[in-house]
C-alpha cells in the first residue's frame, strides 16, 4: 500500500510528470510501455584526458561528460576534468614573409610537412597568428598552408605543435535505464567558459573514447558554462526534478514546483544513544535521506543519512539523544528552508532543475502549509491552507519574478480546484469559493453547515477533514456542474457537493462506493468526467440512467423469489452478465425491505450475493432493481395559509411518463419534524390514480408509467388551533432509476405559500 497521493502535471513537451513528495518524480511520454523516473542522472566522476600523435588539436582544454534520455533531454554535467595543456613541441619565430602563403623562419624547428602548428604573438604580420598546416619546410623555414600575408612582420611570435587525437578515459558508464546517449564535451583553446560536444555515442558501457576533432571541427554551437546571470551551469543546471516538491504547474516555458509535505505515517521506535530508527507501519523511501526527522517531545531534530527500504529503518547522522520510545510520533521533512519555497526548471527543459532556482514565498503566519499550485491566466497561484500568493514572471523568476500575497483564502489540497471558464473554483477550510484573479466570491452559503465544527449540531453532513487528502473536484462543462468530493464517513469520499452553474442550485450526490479521484477527459468526442473508484474501477459519469448494466442485458427489475441475509434470488429471467453487475447496487424498490440497497459482489444466473446483510430480508412481495441510481429531493419548509380552513390542501406531482415500471415515493414533513408523516390512509395504485399508500407508511408510491404524468393527493384539511398544530410543510421525493431518466417537471402544494 502507498498512502501517498500521486499528483500529475503535464509538461510543455507533452510528458506526464507524477510526484508524491516522498518518491522520485516519475514521467511517462505516452509511448514507452513503462513509467520511469523523470529527469536524467549525472555522471559522478570526471573524465581523464591524454593526447596521441601530432596534429591540430591545440591549447588548454577541460572536459565534461553528460547523459541524455530518449527525448534528448540532458542531465547535469559531470565534475570537470583536470586541465590538459596540449603543447608537445614549440619554437620561436624570428621572421615571416608578407606573402601568399606566408613563410616563417624558426631556426632548427624540426617540423614535418603536414603537421599542424599554433602560432601566437606575431607583431605586424598579424595574419600569421592562428593554426596552420606546415608545408614546404626547410631546416629553418616552413610555409603556412593556405595563409595570406597581411601587414609586415615586426617582431615576436611562437609556434606550438598540437596533438592528433584526444583520448578520454575513466568515462563514467551509466547504469540508469533512462540514459540512451552519452556526450563528452570540451572547451576550445582560449575559451574556458563554453563547451562543445566532442563525442556523442549510444555506447553505454565503454569507459574510453577518443576524438580527432580540432577546435574548428567542434563547430560553433557552444554551451555556455555560465548563464546570463553569471551562475555556474557546470554541474547543476539539469538536475533531476525535486522529489520533495509534489505540486507542479507550467508557465512561460518553466515547470514550477512547490509544497513541503510532512511524512507522518505510522510511528517509529527511537533508542537513546542509537542512530537507528525503526518504522512501524511506515513506507520510508530512499528519497527521505538528507531530510530531517522530528520526534514528538524531542528537543532536537536529526538529519537522516540513509534509509533502508527493505527493513524500514532510518540511520541518523547523529545518535538519538532523546528518551527511548517504542512508538513515537514523528515527522520527516526537508530542512526548514524548503518549507515555504518554490523551485523552477530550466527554460523548456521541464526535467532539468537547478537547485539554485529557488525562491521563498513571503512569510505569512496565518497562511499555514503550502497545499497546491495552479497556473491560471498569466500567473501561477501558490496556495497555502488559508492564503493565496500570486507569482508573476516573464522569463526567469530569479530575474524578473515576484510573489505577492493575494486574498486570504486557501486550498485544501492540490486536487480541489477546477478552472471554470474565466475563474477558479476552489475548496478550502472555509467553504467553496470562486476566484477570478481579482475578484473572490463565496459560493457555498447553501451548504455551509457541512463546514460547521459543532458535533452536536443537527447537520446531516459534516466534512471529515482528517481524510482531506482524498478530497477532489471536477468541472463538467457538458452539464455545467462542478462536483466537490468530500468524506462524510470513512476514508474515501462517497459523497459530493454538486453545484449547477445553470440553476445556481446545490445538491449532494451519494455513491455506493468510495470515489477518491476524478478527472475531466473526453469520450466519443465529448467532454466526459471520469471517476476513479474502489476496486480499481474507472467510471464515466452521466452516461445512461443505470449504474452498471445495460437496460436490455437481462432482468434488471422484477419480483424477488426469495432472499437470505446475504443473497437474493429473482423470480424470473436471468440477471445481466457478471461484468455488468459486479459492485453495482441492487435496490429493493417495493414490498418487504423497500428502501434498502446493497452492493452485488457475486452473481449467478438468478441469484446475487450482496456485500452486507439485509436488515429487513426481502421476500416474494419485494421488487428489486439492479443498477438503479437512487435520488432524493426535498423542498424547503412552507407555511400553510392563514385561512386554510377555507382552502383544500393537496400535493400534485407532474413528471414525464416512463415506459417501464418505475416508482417514486412522495413524503411530507410537518413543522420541523425530522421523520416524515404517515399518510394515514390506504389506497392502491390500481384505482387509476397512479398512487398507492399503505397505512402507517410515510411513502406515497407514485407509478410513473401513468400516461398523463400527473398525480394529485389530497391532504387532511384545516389547521389545528392548538400550539402543536401543523403550521409548516415540506415535501420530499425519492426514486430509483430503472433505465429511463426520471424527470419531475413540477411539484405543486396547494394551500401553502
Amino acid at each position, binding site marked *: 500500500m502507498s498512502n501517498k497521493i500521486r*499528483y500529475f502535471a503535464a509538461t510543455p513537451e507533452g510528458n506526464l510528470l507524477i510526484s508524491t513528495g516522498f518518491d522520485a518524480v516519475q514521467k511517462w511520454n505516452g509511448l514507452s510501455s513503462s513509467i520511469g523516473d523523470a529527469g536524467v542522472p549525472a555522471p559522478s566522476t570526471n573524465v581523464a584526458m591524454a593526447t596521441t600523435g601530432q596534429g591540430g588539436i591545440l591549447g588548454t582544454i577541460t572536459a565534461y561528460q553528460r547523459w541524455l534520455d530518449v527525448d534528448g533531454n540532458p542531465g547535469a554535467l559531470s565534475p570537470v576534468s583536470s586541465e590538459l595543456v596540449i603543447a608537445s613541441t614549440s619554437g620561436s619565430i624570428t621572421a615571416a614573409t608578407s606573402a601568399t602563403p606566408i613563410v616563417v623562419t624558426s631556426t632548427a624547428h624540426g617540423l614535418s610537412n603536414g603537421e599542424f602548428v599554433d602560432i601566437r604573438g606575431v607583431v605586424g604580420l598579424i595574419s600569421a597568428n592562428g593554426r596552420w598546416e606546415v608545408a614546404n619546410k626547410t631546416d629553418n623555414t616552413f610555409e603556412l598552408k593556405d595563409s595570406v600575408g597581411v601587414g609586415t612582420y615586426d617582431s615576436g611570435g611562437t609556434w606550438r605543435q598540437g596533438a592528433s587525437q584526444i583520448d578520454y578515459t575513466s568515462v563514467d558508464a551509466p547504469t540508469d535505464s533512462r540514459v540512451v546517449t552519452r556526450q563528452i564535451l570540451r572547451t576550445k583553446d582560449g575559451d574556458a567558459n563554453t563547451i562543445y560536444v566532442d563525442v556523442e555515442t549510444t555506447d553505454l558501457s565503454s569507459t574510453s573514447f577518443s576524438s580527432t576533432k580540432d577546435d574548428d571541427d567542434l563547430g560553433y554551437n557552444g554551451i555556455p558554462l555560465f548563464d546570463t546571470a553569471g551562475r555556474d551551469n557546470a554541474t547543476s543546471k539539469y538536475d533531476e526534478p525535486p522529489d520533495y516538491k509534489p505540486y507542479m504547474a507550467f508557465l512561460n516555458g518553466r515547470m514550477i514546483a512547490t509544497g513541503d509535505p510532512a511524512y507522518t505515517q505510522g510511528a517509529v521506535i527511537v533508542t537513546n544513544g542509537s542512530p537507528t530508527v525503526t518504522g512501524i507501519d511506515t513506507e520510508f523511501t530512499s528519497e527521505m535521506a538528507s531530510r530531517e526527522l522530528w520526534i514528538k517531545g524531542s528537543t532536537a531534530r536529526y538529519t537522516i543519512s540513509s534509509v533502508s527500504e527493505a527493513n524500514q529503518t532510518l540511520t541518523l547522522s547523529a545518535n538519538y539523544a532523546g528518551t527511548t520510545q517504542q512508538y513515537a510520533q514523528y515527522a520527516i521533512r526537508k530542512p526548514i528552508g524548503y518549507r515555504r519555497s518554490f523551485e523552477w526548471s530550466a527554460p523548456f527543459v521541464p526535467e532539468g532543475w537547478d537547485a539554485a532556482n529557488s525562491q521563498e514565498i513571503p512569510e505569512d503566519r496565518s497562511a499555514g502549509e503550502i497545499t497546491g499550485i495552479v497556473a491560471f491566466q498569466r500567473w501561477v497561484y501558490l496556495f497555502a491552507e488559508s492564503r493565496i500568493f500570486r507569482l508573476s514572471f516573464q522569463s526567469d523568476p530569479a530575474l524578473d519574478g515576484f510573489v505577492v500575497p493575494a486574498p486570504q483564502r486557501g486550498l485544501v489540497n492540490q486536487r480541489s480546484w477546477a478552472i471554470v471558464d474565466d475563474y477558479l473554483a476552489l475548496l478550502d477550510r472555509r467553504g467553496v469559493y470562486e476566484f477570478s484573479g481579482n475578484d473572490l466570491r463565496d459560493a457555498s452559503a447553501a451548504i455551509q453547515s457541512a463546514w460547521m465544527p459543532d458535533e452536536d449540531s443537527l447537520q446531516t453532513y459534516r466534512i471529515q477533514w482528517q481524510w482531506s487528502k482524498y478530497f477532489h473536484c471536477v468541472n463538467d462543462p457538458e452539464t455545467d456542474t462542478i462536483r466537490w468530493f468530500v468524506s462524510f464517513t470513512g476514508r474515501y469520499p462517497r459523497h459530493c457537493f454538486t453545484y449547477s452553474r445553470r440553476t445556481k442550485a446545490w445538491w449532494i450526490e451519494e455513491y455506493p462506493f468510495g470515489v477518491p479521484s476524478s478527472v475531466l477527459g473526453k469520450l466519443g468526442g465529448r467532454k466526459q468526467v471520469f471517476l476513479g473508484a474502489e476496486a480499481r474501477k474507472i467510471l464515466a459519469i452521466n452516461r445512461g440512467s443505470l449504474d452498471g448494466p445495460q437496460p436490455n442485458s437481462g432482468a434488471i427489475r422484477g419480483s424477488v423469489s426469495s432472499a437470505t441475509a446475504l443473497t437474493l434470488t429473482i423470480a424470473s429471467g436471468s440477471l445481466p452478465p457478471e461484468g455488468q453487475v459486479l459492485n453495482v447496487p441492487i435496490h429493493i424498490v417495493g414490498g418487504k425491505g423497500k428502501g434498502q440497497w446493497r452492493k452485488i459482489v457475486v452473481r449467478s444466473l438468478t441469484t446475487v450475493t450482496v456485500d452486507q446483510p439485509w436488515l429487513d430480508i426481502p421476500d416474494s412481495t419485494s421488487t428489486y432493481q439492479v443498477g438503479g441510481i437512487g435520488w432524493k429531493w426535498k423542498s424547503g419548509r412552507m407555511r400553510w395559509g392563514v385561512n386554510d380552513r377555507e382552502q383544500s390542501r393537496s400535493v400534485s406531482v407532474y413528471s414525464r411518463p416512463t415506459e417501464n415500471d418505475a416508482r417514486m415515493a412522495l413524503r411530507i414533513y410537518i413543522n420541523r419534524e425530522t421523520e416524515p408523516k404517515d399518510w394515514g390512509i390506504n389506497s392502491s395504485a390500481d384505482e387509476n390514480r397512479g398512487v398507492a399508500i399503505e397505512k402507517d407508511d410515510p411513502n406515497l408510491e407514485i407509478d410513473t408509467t401513468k400516461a398523463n404524468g400527473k398525480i394529485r393527493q389530497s391532504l387532511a384539511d384545516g389547521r389545528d388551533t392548538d400550539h402543536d398544530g401543523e403550521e409548516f410543510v415540506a415535501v420530499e421525493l425519492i426514486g430509483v432509476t430503472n433505465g429511463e431518466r426520471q424527470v419531475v417537471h413540477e411539484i405543486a402544494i396547494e394551500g401553502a405559500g
Partner: protein
Amino acid sequence: MRYLGRFQLGQFVHLSLITSNTAEEYPDAPTAPDAAPTFSIYNSDGSKVITNKRMPLQHPSETALFAVDQMLACLSALGPAYGTVEFEEGRSYFVRYEWLISTAAFARIDYFDVIPGGDCRGAYTALEFYERPQADFVVGALENGTVEKRRGPSIS
C-alpha cells in the same frame, strides 16, 4: 473475539487494540505495553498473511490505544516482508494481537471476511486524462502505489 466485518480486496480494515494486563476487549484499566503491540493475520487454513507487524498509537494522548488501517493488498515490494501469502476472496481471516506488559504476554483475536468483487491494488486515488496524438489515455494511480495507463477510454 470481535467480528470486524465484510471487506473487499483493496479496502482497509481498521484494526484497533486497547492494551491492558488482561485480554479483555474493553478493559477497565488500559495499560501502556512494553513495546508497540504486534498483530498477525491468519487465513482459515492457518497460514500467516501478515506476521508480527507492529501497531502505532492511534493518538499520542491515548497511551494504550493502538490502531492501524490494514489494506487488504497484494504483496508489497516496499517494506519488510510480513508474509508471502496474499489475501483471497471468499475467505475468513483471524487477527491475533500480541503485547507485553512488564514482560508478561497477552493476546487477543479478531476476525473478518473477505468477500468477492474487490481488487488488491485498491482504489484509484489519482486520475489524469492524457491526450496524445496517437491515443487518449486515462492514467490512474492506485492505492497500492502502482500507476496504470488505460488507452482509448470507452464504456464497457
